[in-house]
């Protein structure tokens, strides 16, 4: 187990290295100058130049990359040009809303998606199944920002059940927090509910076709136990995979939903930072989100070992 973990962690290094290079390259190529953005159109060229120098923008690509990477390796993601604060701090201070959003969306995906998937699998071919799957198609096809707009139109503007946008921290009360989070989480999670439902269904069907299900039935195991004990556990691997992947996507997808709902999470931070050319923040966030994504996948892999004894993690 330990060696496996070690090996997996080591194997993350090239991935993250490539990500860092890709991100850095992209940012290097990005036009627009943070110094200019900061100073506005009234600044003289000398002022801009002085600021550029101070920000280290005049160094070469390689120099800048290594300075940055050196910092990253020591856990220092750099300092935001605009907010003048540690990028790590910016990320942490913006993480709460995003995390809350992603977790809520994931919860929706799990508690709605999996039961629907199981239900549809058990009634495969029936109208119930077909209508659920039809719905799931629509769920997958609606971009989150569009759903967000529709949800706002219906629940906030027409029914006035939820606030149109904004964010309240958890410290201001759970309900208050949720009131602001439910619509965004739904908008964000809808696609994942649908994906989870579909994955659950097809994974369940795959397993239901396997021979050991016949064995279980031949033993006289009740159908409900066949489903929950024998099928679901085996069907769980791909479901967990998709849930894990979803989580990464959810965090990234929050960028869009956060913009629509004006939630001050890292999604919005990254969009804003791109607008302001706040390069350290952009780099930091992308690296961070990628890291989260990769780590979640690692956790999923570890879960495999727990669920399926065939997956040997230790040697």
């Amino acid at each position: 187990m330990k060696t496996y973990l070690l090996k997996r962690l080591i194997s993350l290094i090239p991935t993250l290295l490539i990500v860092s290079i890709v991100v850095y390259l992209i940012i290097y190529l990005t036009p627009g100058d943070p110094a200019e953005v900061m100073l506005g159109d009234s600044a003289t060229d000398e002022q801009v130049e002085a600021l550029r120098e101070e920000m280290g923008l005049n160094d070469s690509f390689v120099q800048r990359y290594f300075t940055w990477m050196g910092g990253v390796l020591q856990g220092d993601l750099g300092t935001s040009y605009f907010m003048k604060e540690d990028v790590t701090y910016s990320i942490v201070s913006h993480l709460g809303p995003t995390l809350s959003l992603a977790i809520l969306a994931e919860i929706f995906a799990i508690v709605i998606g999996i039961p629907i998937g199981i239900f549809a699998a058990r009634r495969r071919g029936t109208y119930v199944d077909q209508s659920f799957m039809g719905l799931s198609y629509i769920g997958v096809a609606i971009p989150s920002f569009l759903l967000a707009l529709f949800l706002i139109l219906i629940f906030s503007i027409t029914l006035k059940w939820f606030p149109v946008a904004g964010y309240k921290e958890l410290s201001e009360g759970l309900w208050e927090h949720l009131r602001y989070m439910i619509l965004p989480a739904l908008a964000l999670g809808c696609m994942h509910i649908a994906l989870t439902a579909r994955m659950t269904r097809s994974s369940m069907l795959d397993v239901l076709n396997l021979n050991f299900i016949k064995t279980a039935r031949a033993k006289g195991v009740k159908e409900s136990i066949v489903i929950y004990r024998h099928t679901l556990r085996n069907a769980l691997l791909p479901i967990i995979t998709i849930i894990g992947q979803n989580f990464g996507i959810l965090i990234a997808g929050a960028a869009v939903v956060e913009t629509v709902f004006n939630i001050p999470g890292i999604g919005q931070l990254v969009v804003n930072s791109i607008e302001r050319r706040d390069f350290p923040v952009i780099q930091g966030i992308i690296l961070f989100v990628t890291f989260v994504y990769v780590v979640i996948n690692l956790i999923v892999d570890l879960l495999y070992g727990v669920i399926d004894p065939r997956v040997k993690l230790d040697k």
Partner: protein
Amino acid sequence: MEAVVKSASDLSKRRTALKKEQRRLAYSKFIHNKQAVTGFIILAFIVALALLGPIFISLDPYEIHPEDRLQGPSGNYLFGTDNLGRDLLARVIFGAQISLFIGLAVAFFAGILGTIIGLYASYYKFLDNVLMRICEGIMAIPAILLAIALMAALGPSTENIIIALSIVYTPYVARVVRSSALVIREETYIEAMKAIGAKSFRIIWGHIAPNVVSPLIIQITSVFANAILIEATLSFLGAGVPAPTPSWGNILYDGKMVIFNTPWMVVFPGICIVLAILALNMFGDGLRDILDPHSNSKK
């Protein structure tokens, strides 16, 4: 020998007959697949609208009518007008062209590049390590963030969206191609080709490639759908197709501002996006059933 030659002359006839039969079979298989047919019909409808719409309805998606801003649907403007008083129907139709074009182009480029990468990675171990690491790296960056960042770097233009999204989606195609190719590579007939003395190029392109076509097509429809979605998202965030070119995302971007007063600016292009993606997904899944060798075989 006589008999052989005679048969040879019959061969071409036989061939056409078989081809016809094959086409008929494929058609009947397709026509019996509800998903594929529904997806196809919707898609065909949207494509027809995009291509023929401008011919039959002579509307200008750019013409500004300051006096008719934000009109609701009416006889004059079937879908109403937008915040510049441009005809929403015309914009949605032209938006369809753009969105479909981008989706198609991305699917095409990512498809080709991904196939090449996937095939060679699956065949040569040393390439596999390098290429797949890079792909993994790119895939580890969430698609939407990568797309946004790339668009910021490349600058907004339709070509750049295509480039950016192709970069984003190539690894996904490559991965699918590679994983199917890895399976195919182990098939006995590949071994048989080696036993016969075939060179790698022939094996890769003549034998492995045709067999990854089904998963590839399915993946490509999904890339197609995703490209439309991400393009819309990018445009919605203001980082996509440069205005005033209408794209569905662009229209939504404008519509977001006025959602309280003029929800149809969101509703019409919104429905189009949903329909297009829905159709593509259904079509892709239908194809999956059709192309799946398991559904062919006796079982």
